């Protein structure tokens, strides 16, 4: 199976554990080189975050289990890059329109 190089997830999580705790936990996973987490919505009980995980061979199931163990729910996989190298999305006429 191809190696996952980048994963972008839309996650709903409770306030505790904090974003710092969740990012640290994902960052500690083997083959994960870096984690970017940004908050885009918050309410009294929960917060919506975008999590970008990059690495040489990211284990999706392990990332999912880590997030769920910390109380998060993955709503969607917004972007995924797999293969031998990172391939960025190309803008087409349709996107510019």
């Amino acid at each position, binding site marked *: 199976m191809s190696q996952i190089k980048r994963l972008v997830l839309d996650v709903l999580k409770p306030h*505790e*554990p904090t974003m710092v705790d969740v990012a640290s936990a994902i960052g500690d996973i083997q083959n994960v080189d870096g984690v970017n987490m940004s908050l885009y919505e918050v309410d009294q*009980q*929960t917060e919506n975050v975008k999590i970008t995980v990059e690495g040489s061979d990211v284990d999706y199931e392990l990332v999912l289990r880590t997030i769920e*163990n910390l*109380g998060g729910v993955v709503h969607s996989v917004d972007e995924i890059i797999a293969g031998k190298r990172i391939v960025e999305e190309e803008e087409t006429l349709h996107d510019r329109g």
Partner: protein
Amino acid sequence: MSFNIEAGRYVILGSVDGLLATLGIIVGVSVTSAQNSVIVSAAFGGAIALALTNGLGSYLAESTIEYGKLSITERSLLRDLSDTYIESQTRRKIMRDAFSSGAASFIGSLVPISPYLFSVGSTIASVSLSLASLVILGVYAGYISKRSYLISVIKMVGLGTLIVIAVQLLRVGHLVR
């Protein structure tokens, strides 16, 4: 910081409970001119009962509240949080708070008993030591709440004094012969 604040609640609650309730027992029993051994026996019995009931009571209360909070979070997330890190932290907090409450209660109880254990047993010594302990607890409460240390001490010592006076005024012991 949040750990100190949460732990502080049960330390203060348990200590004050153990200290003043046991002091009440000592003051009440000493009215009957009982021997020191009787006073110590009654006070220790009270101390153990208080420690167990406070610990158990805190366990039951914290379980109810913390699992209630957890279920609110579960509803917001639309998922079950059983067997997660969050649930394990919840269980840990419940046990820690129950232990803090029971242990603080027992340690607080030892303060008024201690003069009798070191053969300087007198009600005055117990009361003095208890009031001194309330000063320390008042300072701790001031540190936790980040409010005036003086006001916290006055509250602690003032309420403690009121309880001692109340027990003295009631003096039920000498009515039962």
